[in-house]
């Protein structure tokens, strides 16, 4: 146990003292916190008390001066039209030439020459995607509709009441609200994918590196090989969890401070129910460890770090398949495929998590899936320890897992005899 703790400490220090690990973690944590804090930062520039709604409604207090020429007096009330374009103020010109000159000299951003009630010309120096043209078109249309209704003695409310009556509806969700759960489930499954692929490779690389720099012979003669592989795999797991907690935590803390600025619009991402966290922790960690032990044993079967990606590609494909099944099942979290996959060790971590987070699942199903995954983890750990012991002193070409298992069995038989 002492040896295991020493290996764990040493390996953890390798991760936590690694400059790239520290930089990546800090950058992602700052990025997560910064992205969540964007509305508050903008609000800070614009003055206190602004929410995301305020920001989106009145994003710019500076009035842009726009020219307008209505020689035929087609618009009854120009100020009414102006009110429909917040952020812009109208500079009325008496003639087209005057307006064009003002545009050319950039006294005004652009200009509109009104021909009649439903015809106008947009005058601009350089056409760009600034949204003014569209905004004016909408305001002009609305003005046209209002004036028409006024002429006919109708109000806009009356027309709206007929064309778009307010339908009152309500919803009672008896099971899970998969629509609201979708985003955070997606984020957590994707997070697990990144952790398994990234840290799996790191664990395999760490083991192979010790083979390629020949430190392994000193290590296996100094420490029990079980302590060695368990220490390495768990150090990878702990670092992954720490990195995740730091990044997610910084985002969540930042959201705690900026929730008002968001008007609570990100609650559905950050206010994840405890049961979902628990499912993610249990199934995520077990699934992660299962793959980590497999990556560990694959690392022991190659001698050069450049061979890892080739040796690890089958297990990576299996995990990608598990990930894809989970992604496709998010729109049908009670489907047959995801149900079956939630009891297969290699796919259970993602599939059962999705069922718990988004679908309807019985307690016995969770327990059975958890038990299968736990037993698989233990089996993978024991097998990884044996393969590690066998593979560590085998140099040269990568050894296939099937060949290693066969040789291991032969070796055990030979030693018994």
């Amino acid at each position, binding site marked *: 146990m002492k040896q295991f703790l020493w290996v764990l400490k040493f390996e953890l220090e390798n991760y936590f003292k690694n400059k790239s690990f520290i930089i990546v973690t800090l950058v992602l944590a700052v990025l997560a916190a910064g992205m969540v804090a964007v509305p508050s930062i903008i609000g800070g520039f614009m003055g206190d008390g602004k929410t995301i709604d305020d920001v989106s409604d009145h994003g710019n207090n500076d009035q842009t001066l726009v020219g307008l020429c209505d020689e035929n007096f087609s618009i009854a009330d120009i100020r009414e039209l102006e009110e429909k374009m917040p952020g812009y103020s109208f500079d009325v010109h008496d003639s087209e030439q005057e307006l064009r000159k003002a545009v050319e000299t950039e006294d005004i951003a652009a200009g509109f020459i009104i021909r009649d009630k439903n015809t106008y010309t947009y005058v601009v120096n350089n056409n760009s995607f600034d949204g003014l043209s569209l905004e004016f078109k909408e305001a002009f249309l609305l003005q046209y509709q209002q004036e028409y209704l006024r002429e006919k003695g109708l109000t806009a409310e009356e027309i709206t009441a007929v064309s778009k009556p307010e339908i009152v509806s309500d919803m009672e969700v008896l099971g899970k609200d998969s629509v609201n759960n979708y985003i955070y489930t997606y984020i957590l499954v994707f997070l697990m994918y990144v952790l398994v692929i990234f840290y799996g490779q790191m664990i395999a690389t760490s083991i192979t590196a010790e083979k390629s720099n020949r430190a392994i012979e*000193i290590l296996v003669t100094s420490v029990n090989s079980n302590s060695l592989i368990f220490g390495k795999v768990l150090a990878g797991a702990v670092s992954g969890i720490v990195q995740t907690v730091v990044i997610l935590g910084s985002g969540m803390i930042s959201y705690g401070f900026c929730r008002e600025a968001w008007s609570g619009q990100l609650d559905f991402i950050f206010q994840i129910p405890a049961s979902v966290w628990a499912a993610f922790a249990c199934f995520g960690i077990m699934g992660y460890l299962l793959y980590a032990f497999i990556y560990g044993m694959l690392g022991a079967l190659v001698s050069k770090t450049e061979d890892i990606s080739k040796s690890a590609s089958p297990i990576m494909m299996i995990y990608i398949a598990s990930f894809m099944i989970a992604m496709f099942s998010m729109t049908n979290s009670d489907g047959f495929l995801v149900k079956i996959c939630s009891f297969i060790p290699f796919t259970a971590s993602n599939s059962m998590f999705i069922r718990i987070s988004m679908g309807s699942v019985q307690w016995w199903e969770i327990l059975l899936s958890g038990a299968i995954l736990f037993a698989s983890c233990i089996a993978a750990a024991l097998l990884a320890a044996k393969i590690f012991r066998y593979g560590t002193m085998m140099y040269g070409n990568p050894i296939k897992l099937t060949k290693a298992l066969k040789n291991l069995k032969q070796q055990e038989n030979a030693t018994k005899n």
Partner: protein
Amino acid sequence: MRLEVKDLRKSFGEREVLHGISFVVESGKALGLLGRNGAGKTTTIRILMDVFKANSGEITVDGRPFVTKEFQIGYLPEERGLYPKKEVAEQIIYLARLRGMSAKEAKDNLNYWLKRLGVEEYRNRKLETLSKGNQQKVQLVQTLVCNPEIVILDEPFSGLDPVNSQVLKDVIQELIQSGRLVIFSSHQMSYVEEFCEDIVIINHGEIVLSGYLKEIKREYGKDRLFLAAEDQVPEILAGKITEQFADLLQVAAVKKDGVIVKLLDGITKKAVLGRLASADMELEFFGNYEPSLTDIFVERAGDQV
């Protein structure tokens, strides 16, 4: 302490690489484990270190089964390796702690051996920044940091310059004198002759010669003479001996400065000297042949050369 290896056999797949290796080594003595490349020395050492399991055979210490983890063993493997990107002190202390040393012991021993081997200035340097010779000395520090009762050194002198070799020679002599049990594998026979009272020569996975080195040398030189003539190169001298003295001698080897001959059964040195004195040659040297370990090794393990 008496370490006894009895009839070790080891196979990799269908191929048996050790065909019954046996030897004995005691505390305060060094055993020279010799053999050509691929003879089975490293496999034997790895079985001792419990890296591999033997298919059969037994290893005992004072009559009890030898369990590697019950002893502090200083092991310098043939394939040197530590963490190149780690600081020297950090990794040596880590390895010492894995072998059960307390933090204080590990630090004290580290300081002692770094100083003893003249590498204390590299304490906080990354291993990869050191020269090959200094990396080799750091390897020796990791071997000795745990106060080993048993020391197994596989080619310890490789990569060391003559000055550092002398430092290491002194260290090994101290280890032997302080009662450590030393197993020493090397191709450099002069070092083996200096340290080892006993030798084992392994060839193709089996022992071809073992025992007390002085006795082996004496036995090996028995009935052998070294002859040199002033007026004849060794090859001509060897030809003459074969032609004229075939009833007394047999040429065993031709060296650059003379010929080694073996007396035939029942022939005395006096009789040979009498015949040689009356022969047509200017005898320059006539004496007992004292074989070097290299000669013995080449003869016993050099069958495939």
